[in-house]
């Protein structure tokens, strides 16, 4: 029996989504993805290091054509940043699957759901009312 699930037009067999933040290095991260059988990894979006652009990149180790990259909005504390980040992610990756979260505070990284909803609404409309998120 094959058990699959689909999102954004992509079908997966594994339900495990592996992170990419806490590994010793890219090799270890890639090995963990392979060993787990995960088909999705969450990734962050950051500025390219223009002073050392030849530094190793995640995409050199985990092939985006085989493993689905799920760009997240780690580090975004408001909807404007989150939407801006995901729009860039969409352009960098060329696909529409993203993970939206807006952090409530820096210590626990616990999400702020009211702002998540505001961001989602802004995303659907194609614009974000930066001052209207908590006006519900």
């Amino acid at each position, binding site marked *: 029996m094959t058990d699959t699930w689909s999102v954004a037009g992509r079908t997966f067999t594994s339900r495990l989504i592996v992170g990419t933040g806490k590994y010793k290095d890219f090799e270890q991260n890639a090995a963990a993805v392979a060993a787990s059988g995960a088909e999705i990894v969450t990734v962050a979006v950051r500025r390219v290091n223009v002073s050392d652009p030849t530094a190793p990149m995640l995409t050199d180790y985990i092939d985006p054509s085989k493993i689905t990259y799920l760009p*997240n909005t780690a580090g975004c504390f408001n909807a404007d940043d989150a939407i801006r980040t995901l729009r860039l992610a969409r352009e960098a990756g060329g696909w529409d699957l993203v993970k939206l979260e807006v952090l409530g505070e820096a210590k626990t990284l616990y999400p702020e759901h009211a702002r998540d909803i505001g961001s989602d609404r802004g995303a659907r409309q194609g614009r974000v009312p930066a001052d209207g998120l908590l006006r519900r």
Partner: protein
Amino acid sequence: MRRYALPLYGLLGKRQSKAETAVISIMLNGEQRQVRESIADLVASLGLDVKKVAVERNREIMARSTLVDIALAEGDALEIVHFVGGGC
């Protein structure tokens, strides 16, 4: 402002039209840079694969297909981003 490149064209006997690609000053990922290229050439000169990055110019995302055609203007603020490990 560094302008030494312009007289050099005269010495080398290059046509005057070359001066149109004058050096301009932009902000690239928060750092000031002197450039004279299109965005696509700038990305390439940084050793980056244009297919793996996204470019924002003055907070507006540039479609990848248009990067070749876009000349930078003095004072432009560019952000070049890519995917990195992080988040959960």
